[in-house]
């Protein structure tokens, strides 16, 4: 109790420090930047914070903090725009929102989805800040209780969310998750550096695939292609407005859900190393599991928006705990945040001393977080009227620009042509998975959790071995601590409930069946990949055995699952749901354009980039697409293409990026941006 009483003077002093016009001004500036960064799919905290980094030198600590926190706090709010309106995850924390948010936009309920999302985001952010206030005082010993076995159980619990999202045939979901795990393992092993499914001949793969690219590829690209084929506007109806109050009422009706998901967000955010990208899936899984009427999930149930949106704002508050208390960044953007803190005027050092020496500073951070959420939400609501109108524009006009932004986001980190190749490859996988009703959320969860599960399982095993050698009880108390047991029970419950309900949650929507051949071919390709993976990791030599264990385990389970599916396919009749094929559905019949020609457009962009570099390729792509596919006249085509190119150049110039180079660039030295 004294602990809290002692903290009150720090709280009030922090509050006083913040309520100054200068500080609030900087906060608003940060919020605006955060909004801009969040709205563009794929750009996240890292890009934004790197922009701010040069300005942090010697800046007054409170002002610098206001700027940075303003940006970080608001990104999970503004990323909702892309998720709801276009079905493209705005950031890695916003993937689950797409599942129900986008169908709502298609039904013409964009305004309702957005306002529910913003209310939830605001609430989640405030809960996160409030929780942080109290928790940070007692956080240290609690965080220390989470050692390798506990962290492993949390990751496994995250994996169990696959159960609920597995789709109509559970084994398909399991194999999809296995596939995601395998893709997540690609690259150098963490223990001995042994290569898995990569070789130094293609150095790009040795680092593994990036989440941004996989996330965009598996969710965004299939949606863009599907919409492009229909060639209508995103929204089925013209009705856009009027859902505002409804959305807020929806949130209020589900406030306890929002509260629970916010707590989930904060708690998962606190645990270092898990990564915020899992938190929205856990929140979504929880939402579905605790809902009485599960009919509409995946088709536009507003609760599917409220849950994840509450949690992803709350996790920002939670993520600050390990960052501030231990100096261990909870995510990539937190790592930059720590660096920026050191640059500020007084040079703030994170770590255990922070609470002792700078408690009021810590609380400034908390209050700033809360305020930023409020300002951010207000601004988002103001903006959404205009931005929502995008859903009424003919998609053929929007598509090339969306694709342009996605490509830009993809080569953010590497500026490598391979980024685009991988984007296209994963995009193609995503399209096929969507077509044959394989759960894409399961894939992504597997991908995200591959690294934590492998690392923690290995650490836990090593330490457990050492402890068991020291004594039976010693080992047992380490492995089966109270937290582990609780998490284990939660996981089992989650899997059981999930599998029973999975039939009702159509993560991919209704997909009819018909025709054995196409689904079978896809399954065979998947089996081929798993077989390759199995062979590849099996040939890792013994001295690097630790790098082999986990991949081999995952590949074996996936193979067994895939073979079971194969047998089921051979035995089942043609109309069984196992042969889901979206091409046979009414959606395909409505589509004006076929799949392959549409895909060919983007293959065109890719090939052209490899030849002439991105900007030239983009120019050619935009002009030809708008003229030929969208059928615009020359004036409009040049105008819009010009606008697109100018926009790309501006973004790259601000962020100081080069574009991927092609064959042309290796022969001729061209000035920026053609380099």
């Amino acid at each position, binding site marked *: 109790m004294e602990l809290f009483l002692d903290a009150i003077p720090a709280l009030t002093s922090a509050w006083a420090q913040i309520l100054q016009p200068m500080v609030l001004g900087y906060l608003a500036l940060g919020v605006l930047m955060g909004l801009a960064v969040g709205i563009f799919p794929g750009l996240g905290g890292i890009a934004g914070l790197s922009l701010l980094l040069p300005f942090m030198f010697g800046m007054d600590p409170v002002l610098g903090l206001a700027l940075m926190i303003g940006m970080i706090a608001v990104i999970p709010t503004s990323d909702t725009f892309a998720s709801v309106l276009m079905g493209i995850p705005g950031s890695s924390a916003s993937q689950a929102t797409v599942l129900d948010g986008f169908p709502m936009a298609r039904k013409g309920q964009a305004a309702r989805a957005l306002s529910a999302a913003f209310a939830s985001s605001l609430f989640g952010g405030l809960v996160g800040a409030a929780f942080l206030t109290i928790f940070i005082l007692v956080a240290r010993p609690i965080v220390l209780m*989470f050692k390798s076995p506990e962290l492993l159980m949390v990751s496994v619990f995250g994996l169990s969310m696959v159960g609920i999202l597995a789709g109509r045939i559970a084994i398909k979901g399991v194999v999809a998750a296995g596939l995601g795990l395998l893709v997540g393992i690609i690259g150098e092993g963490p223990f001995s550096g042994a290569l898995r499914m990569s070789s130094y001949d293609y150095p790009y793969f040795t680092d593994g695939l990036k989440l941004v690219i996989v996330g965009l590829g598996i969710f965004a690209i299939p949606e863009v292609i599907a919409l492009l084929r229909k060639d209508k506007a995103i929204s089925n109806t013209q009705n856009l407005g009027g859902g505002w109050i409804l959305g807020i009422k929806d949130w209020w009706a589900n406030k306890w859900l929002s509260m629970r998901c916010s707590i989930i967000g904060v708690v998962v955010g606190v645990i270092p190393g898990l990564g915020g990208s899992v938190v929205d899936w856990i929140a979504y899984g929880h939402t579905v599991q605790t809902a009485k009427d599960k009919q509409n999930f995946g088709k536009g149930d507003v609760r599917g928006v409220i849950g994840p949106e509450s949690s992803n704002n709350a996790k920002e508050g939670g993520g600050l705990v390990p960052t501030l208390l231990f100096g261990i960044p909870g995510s990539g953007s937190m790592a930059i945040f720590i660096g920026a803190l050191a640059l500020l005027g007084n040079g703030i050092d994170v770590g255990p001393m922070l609470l002792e020496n700078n408690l009021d500073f810590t609380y400034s951070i908390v209050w700033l977080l809360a305020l930023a959420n409020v300002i951010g939400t207000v601004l988002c609501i103001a903006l959404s009227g205009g931005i929502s109108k995008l859903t009424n524009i003919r998609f053929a006009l929007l598509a090339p620009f969306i694709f342009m932004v996605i490509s830009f986001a993809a080569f953010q980190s590497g500026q490598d042509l391979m980024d685009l190749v991988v984007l296209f490859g994963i995009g193609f996988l995503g399209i096929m998975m969507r077509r044959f009703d394989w759960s894409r959320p399961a894939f992504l969860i597997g991908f995200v959790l591959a690294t934590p599960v492998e690392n923690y399982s290995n650490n836990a095993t090593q330490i457990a071995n050492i402890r068991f050698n020291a004594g039976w009880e010693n080992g047992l108390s380490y492995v089966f601590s109270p937290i582990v047991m609780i998490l284990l029970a939660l996981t089992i419950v989650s899997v059981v409930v999930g599998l029973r309900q999975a039939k009702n949650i159509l993560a991919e929507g209704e997909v009819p069946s018909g025709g054995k051949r196409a689904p079978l071919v896809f399954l065979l390709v998947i089996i081929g990949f798993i077989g390759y993976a199995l062979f590849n990791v099996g040939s890792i030599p013994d001295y690097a055995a630790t790098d082999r264990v986990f991949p081999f385990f995952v590949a074996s389970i996936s193979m067994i699952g895939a073979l079971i599916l194969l047998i089921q396919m051979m035995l089942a009749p043609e109309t069984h749901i196992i042969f889901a094929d979206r091409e046979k559905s009414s959606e395909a019949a409505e589509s004006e354009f076929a799949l392959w020609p549409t895909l060919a457009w983007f293959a065109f962009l890719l090939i052209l980039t490899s030849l002439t570099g991105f900007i030239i390729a983009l120019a050619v792509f935009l002009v030809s697409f708008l003229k030929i596919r969208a059928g615009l006249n020359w004036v409009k085509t040049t105008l819009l293409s010009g606008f697109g190119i100018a926009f790309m150049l501006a973004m790259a110039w601000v962020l100081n990026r080069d574009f991927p180079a092609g064959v042309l660039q290796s022969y001729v030295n061209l000035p920026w941006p053609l380099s």
Partner: protein
Amino acid sequence: MASGTGGVAYLNAEAGAKFDGSANNLKDMTFIYGNQGATGLDLIPSLAWDMLGMNVEHVLGIKGRGDGRKMFESGEATIDYQTSSSYLSGSMPLVESGQAVPMMTWGALDDDGNIVRDPTFPDLPTFKEVCEATDGCETSGVKWDTWKAFFVTGFPLQKIAFLPNGTDQEIIDTFSNAFAKIKARPDFAEISAKRLGKYPMHTGVKAKNALSDAITVEADAKTFVKGWLKEDFGVDLQ
């Protein structure tokens, strides 16, 4: 510009009570250490503890020394080391609360290339001193030479600023002069001591010499280390 840092190894309370300036009483204990990777900077503490005859179990694959410190604090690991700046900001509280007992520093180099006490931690013995006091540990011979070679690269000359090959001499000079100016500031020693510890910063010609010191490893040392890594960690260096 070439600058350095030091490192401090520390034990948990139980082992700390048995530590008497040598590792003689620690040889019957099993230590758990969170290792970032056998071939990285953690090579230096690993080899040092090996030479002292301590039984250290390495848990490989830790993502950063910060994680390693957290493991120590939560009791999962029972021995740890940190570079000077992280020790000052992160591990000192543990020492003050009694949870951690500092064991030794890796030391620093004087102008003649001898290992002397780390100026940031003048009260802590160096590995050299602890080795001399411990039975079975020698401060001469192949093992010692190897350790010293990697120590020099890893710590006193850990931070070297490089510019790409072919940079204009004008730019190189600008950087050199800037570093020299920073070093000449009257409060440089004070500011850097708080953050990084009291380590000298070399610029200009001295920095160039430091570089060649840093990257030269004798053939004997190379052979020894390759064999040791293969035997103890199963790593094959090509």
